[in-house]
């Protein structure tokens, strides 16, 4: 397919990119790895008049440890995360999540910043970022600000980023020794995108759950943390019984996406099943 015509600009620095974004406003789209935007343009579903390519700003591609916080540059590829020793050590569930994304070719090019800013509700990162309590760092004309991941996803393909703001970094607390993370996706066989996905981070002490973060995506228009489940799990024994009880609460009151492939009724059940699997995986429980 051939995209509609557009103007192409390459930004050589973050400042230059922000300047261009301010100048062109909503006529422009940011091009990072291009793994979501380019296919949409080829199908002419997206028709930006101007493309600002930030793909060669190498200073945005890094994974570092700052105290207890892992900092990930916006242009870090999925493959970088999948293969990073630092991620494997500090946030292994993120490496697992990155590995789940599409195929190797896409992971070699697609970026974490691009994926988060694209905000596809069935993408892999959103529930994991929610469970990991990530912070998004954005820079715009008025400087840099931090956005909690809890406030980041607004609606499908829409985030809290302003018109002139670039996602430059993701900050994630390193997992503590008593914390366990897990992520599971049931993928649509056509795309590999989620039909249901779920991520958890569980803190344990003497066989008790002291803190839980539980996040879901793909079956709702906006990925979310389920705070009632989190509250329920608090101070409970880490047993199969506990998680079975908790699973009854999954997707409660939620408006669930349904289509010819997987209707809402099925996805609601699937979310429960996936939650059980994720919790078993995190807590290392056998059924």
């Amino acid at each position, binding site marked *: *397919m*051939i995209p*509609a*015509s557009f103007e192409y600009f390459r930004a050589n620095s973050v400042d230059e990119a922000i300047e261009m974004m301010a100048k062109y406003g909503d006529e422009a789209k940011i091009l990072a790895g291009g793994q979501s935007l380019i296919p949409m343009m080829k*199908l*002419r579903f997206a028709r930006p008049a101007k493309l600002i390519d930030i793909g060669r700003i190498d200073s945005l591609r890094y994974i570092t440890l700052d105290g207890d916080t892992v900092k990930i540059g916006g242009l870090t590829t999925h493959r970088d995360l999948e293969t990073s020793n630092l991620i494997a050590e500090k946030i292994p569930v993120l490496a697992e999540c990155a590995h789940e994304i599409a195929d190797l070719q896409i992971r070699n090019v697609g970026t974490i910043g691009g994926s988060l800013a694209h905000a596809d509700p069935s993408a892999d990162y959103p529930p994991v970022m929610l469970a990991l309590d990530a912070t998004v760092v954005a820079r715009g004309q008025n400087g840099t600000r931090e956005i909690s991941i809890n406030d980041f996803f607004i609606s499908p393909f829409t985030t809290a980023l302003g018109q002139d703001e670039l996602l430059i970094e993701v900050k994630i607390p390193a997992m503590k020794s008593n914390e366990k993370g897990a992520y599971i996706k*049931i993928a*649509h*066989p*056509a*795309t590999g995108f989620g039909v249901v996905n779920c991520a958890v981070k569980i803190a344990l002490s003497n066989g008790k759950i002291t803190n839980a973060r539980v996040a879901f995506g793909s079956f709702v228009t906006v990925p979310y943390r389920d705070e009632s489940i989190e509250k329920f799990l608090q101070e409970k024994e880490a047993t199969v019984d506990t998680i079975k009880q908790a699973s009854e609460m999954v997707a409660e009151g939620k408006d669930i996406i349904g*289509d*010819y*492939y*997987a*209707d809402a*009724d*099925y996805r609601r*059940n*699937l979310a429960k*099943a*996936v939650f*059980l699997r994720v919790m078993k995986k995190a807590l290392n429980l056998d059924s």
Partner: protein
Amino acid sequence: MTAIGQPIRRFEDDRLIRGHGQYVEDIKLAKMVYGVFVRSQVAHGLIKSINTEEAKNAKGVVAVITGNDIKEKVGKNFTAWIVPNSNQVSAEISSRPLLAIDKVRYVGEPVALVIAESREEAYDAAELVDVEYEELPAVANIEKAIQEDAPLVHEGVSRNIALSWQIKNGDVEKVFSEADKLIKQRIYINRAAPIPIEPRACIADYTNGRLTLWITSQNPHIHRFYLANVLGIPEQKIRVIAPDVGGGFGAKIDVYNEELILCYASSLLKRPIKWVETRSEHFVASLHGRDFLVDVEFAVMNDGRVLGIRGQSYANMGAYLGTVSPGVASVLHGLILPGPYRIEAFDYTTNAVFTNTMILDADRGAGRPEAIFVLERMMDLIADELGIDPLELRRRNYLPAGENIQTVTGLSYDSLDFSKVLSKFGEVSDYQALRDYQRKAREEGKYIGIGVVSSIDICGFAPSPVVGAVGLQAGQWESAVVRFHPTGKVTVLSGTHSHGQGGDTTYAQIVSDTLGVPLDSIEVLHGDTDMIPMGWGTYGSRGTSTGGSAVFKAAEKVKEKGKLIAAHLLKLSPEEIDFSNGNYFAKTDPSKKLSIQEVALHANVGWNLPAGVEPGLEAQAFFDPPNFTYPFGIHLCMVEVMPDTGEVKILKYIAVDDGGKIINPLLAEAQIHGGVVHGIGHAMYENIAYTDDGQLLTGSFNEYALPKAHFIPRIESYFTETPSPANPLGAKGIGEEGAIAAQIAVANAIIDALEPFGVKHLDGPYTPARIWKAIHQSNGKNEN
């Protein structure tokens, strides 16, 4: 060492893997322009107006053509299969206008052709064509389309029925009244599509008094024949070239509107025009397959014997009849429905139904997978009802081995021997152990299912008088030329077309053994109607058995002619000469010999030939088989179903097939592997879904799932070899066998796994959601 029987890699692999193939898209001609089609967005509607002004004035646009522009100037695209005694609707009704005139009948129907200097300009201009429709009620599925008050897809008919063809034999009423049990089921086999990795493409060049069409075709001569008929161009003025083609699976048999209109447009513009289908376009504009609804009833005895079958099938043809789709819906389906079993009485009516959807036609197996699906689904239902092991039930019903085994539908199985595949299957499967494992696993709360199916294909198309008698407006013999060059090298021309099968390699093996020439001295060419003799192309598992036999015959003729020349040069009579390993020699004194290469040089220079023998060493042969070929086999699939999500994991897949004489075991196994993947895909992942009013829901790879490599289990493939007497090689086609057997093997395995939930039958596609629903809509029995 003989070449036949060796696992030789395809000659084209190295070239294609390195990106050195030449597909239509790789070909660029001087002054070439690009075509883009404007397609209907509505499933059924009247065209109120088409405004092309803005598009015509857009940058780079050369022409915009609509249906009204060509109405009186070109013919329609017609079906080549007219099923006798079927009340098939007239060509006037079933043929496609090359561009819609006044009315559209499915989403994707071509409405206008925009031609521009560049592809980009053509796409931009196509968006500017403004078509105004008055929408009409549409009908997309069979059950709705056959209702009395359904919206009619065509004027001039009273129902949406394109044809009804009945096969009846034996005393049906008697066996149904005397049977111990009647077992009845409605079975729906969902729509899917062949989906070759290369979409369709063509370049039409009618600039120098001749028309050349480069096209993604499985059968270039059929395209030439259609161009002559639809466009009125003398056939000798037409050259059709099918270069490297990236898979067909049936999708590239049909003659489509796009190439016909492109050729006409090139004659108007006097410029070559290229069109390359996009993947999204492929889903609305290239043929679909399956989509059969079948109501069937089996008469059985308590000991498991099946006495009779009666029923009706309805195939969803889409809005028009495809090149061979009437045969797919009727003959190719109904004749093989009794499969490998001894059935006394049979009464089965095949119906073809018009709907407002894309045209249905041949999808790897074409009518036969649907038949074997129904048959083998029923055999499992019967086994379950009677409490007989599914494999044992089949064993009790097999036709005997033999060379002239008549089926209830009038076929003659000439090399059937199920005892051979059964015995091989026993060796490689340990079926009882798998059943034991299943039983134990169930006790542990694991849902294991086993599908074990027997299949038979009718293929190797085909005896021309027979296909003529059942309505195909074509022959099905095949042609070949074998030609020695002065240097002793050989060129082989074949009327078939290799687009992945590896026919070039297989044919070279046949020639190598027949003439004693090394493989690397042989070049096999195909796909250019100016170069090769008339032939019918590759589909219906006919390449090796029919095309390869023509090659063999031509090589034999060359060998015989060479003998006359060798005898003359050795000063002996031809009767005193023998031939082996590439040498002619005196029977009484093998040291008196000439190589076939030496003979070829003599033949080509012509200095010293026997009286009455023409120079040159080449021969052409036509081969028309006396019978179809009937490969058969047993496939086993074992799955585990996860009851909480409906997910399916394939644990084991075993294929035992009798493909007759296997020329190249590597390629034969690859065909089985590919076919099984096709069948797994159609069973579990692939689904062409329309809304009730004809909007396509699965219009891209975002929705339509092909099986990916990591979805596929290890496939164990084994062969038995019962030679076909219908051709000199003894070969049977195995291109479709895998797809035929696998779709139902997988389905039966999944349904078997659901037995503890009380599920007796489930229609596909077997997606997790549908399986989960089946579990939870059952009595909830045994739910964990």
